């Protein structure tokens, strides 16, 4: 496997289950045990809900595009060969929003509301990144 040169996440105790899950081909998100609200990483909880009342669940991997952009210029040299590429905020079927890439040959076909589905891109021995494709 060639060396991965792009920026890698600074994995912290809050996010470790997400990245561990990705290594095992699972898209992990958080859910509030009291309200059922799902979220990913964001610390926004329903007011008054104790943040320890949170569990990790495996998401279905289905979602729709909430918004997106096509990068015509890269976020640094490591992304240059990918241009143009799509970064999107996806609303998962469970309700949480996730920021990720939509990998497609037809970047101009990406639209808000478009159904997408997860796949797992193993970019190095240590890092697997959940990304999406048009469903």
């Amino acid at each position, binding site marked *: 496997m060639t060396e991965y040169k*792009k920026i890698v996440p600074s994995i912290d105790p809050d996010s470790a289950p997400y990245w561990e899950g990705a290594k095992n081909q699972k898209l992990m998100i958080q859910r509030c045990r009291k309200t059922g609200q799902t979220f990913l990483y964001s610390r926004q909880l329903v007011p008054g809900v104790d943040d320890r009342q949170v569990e990790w669940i495996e998401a279905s991997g289905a979602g729709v595009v909430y918004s997106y952009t096509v990068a015509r210029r890269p976020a640094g040299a490591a992304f240059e060969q990918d241009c143009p590429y799509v970064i999107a905020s996806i609303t998962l079927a469970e309700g949480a929003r996730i920021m990720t890439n939509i990998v497609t040959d037809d970047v101009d076909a990406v639209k808000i509301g478009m159904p997408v589905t997860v796949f797992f891109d193993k970019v190095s021995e240590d890092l697997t990144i959940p990304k999406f494709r048009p469903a």
Partner: protein
Amino acid sequence: MSRQPVIVGVSDAPTENRGRALPGTHVLNMQRDCALEALAEAGLTMADVDGVAVAGMWGMPGPGAMQPNLLTEYLGIRMPKYLDGSNVGGSAFVLHAGHAYEMIKAGVCDTVLILYGSMQKSQAARSLGGRPALFSNQFDMTAGLPSPAGAYAMAANRHFHDYGSNRETLAEIAVATRSWASLNPAAAFRDPLTIDEVLSSPPIVDPLGRQDCCLVTDGGGAVVMTTEERAKDLKAKPIYVLGHGESASHSNINYMPDMSRLEVAEHSSSRAYSMAGLKASDMDMAMIYDSFTITVLLTMEALGLCPRGEGKDFVKGQRTAPGGEFPMNTNGGGLSYCHPGMYGIFLLIEATRQLRGGLGERQAPNLTTAVCHGTGGVLSSGATVVLSNEKP
């Protein structure tokens, strides 16, 4: 004795060659010169200053992490009673003005110096990448989101989808702003700009092209606030700060509750209007943070200058350009005048100058009130102040 807070001095640093600081300038002497000029304009001296507010991205890691300490030292300010280093992005200085209002009004201090300086262009310190994938940025930075432009692009696409605005809407803003810049000798870009040129400018992050994005320049400024009572003996015409508000909703764009609605500005401006006893429709002009054209569209709607979703009609046909119905970003904005990274202080400087009057061909007519709104981060924080040239 009226402790009504007023602005009595403003200054912005001169630049040359499309926004480059003059030779011999660095980030501290730039702020010193702005401070001295703003104080001199008021008829005050550094010895009068007993409050210091500053934000910037310089000197970090290191003394820049505690900028009020360093500026107090560098400027020789003697035991200030109010220090503010709040850094919530480019909105910080508008927020400082709100804090300074409260400190002055409460009698904690009498004269506050708000400062900013940046050498980002000379130091080539800006790029679309290279930001650490920390905390809530773990996901978008890993995905290669050009930052901050990509975040604003997502908001633009969502606004287009929800309200039918489009690239022409944004181009109207860029062109009107450039027309104001053409009247401002201090602006970095003064050449005429057309809607077609904006639409055909090199794409950066869809739907934003080069002309939808702010400049990268050096620059700095200073604002001096004191009490109405103190201002009676001073030579500058006081500009009254009538109300202020601030808020924040997220750090990363993915956690913005609704990307087509700038709720932080709705909250901060409603508090500012209410405090001033005024409404959005009472505002004669607006100075709105224009990091990107979409920032302006979202902010206008949130400030209540037009109903949500109707910004496209508000800016159509150059309504905000010189000679138009509603003057906005009359210095030429971050899009064409200067954008040294954190632009908020220039909103206060220009609104003050317009409300004083006498700006020649750049002067907007018949002004009594102005609303200034700063945005920080990626539509993350917002701060509003309402100003007037009439005693409340």
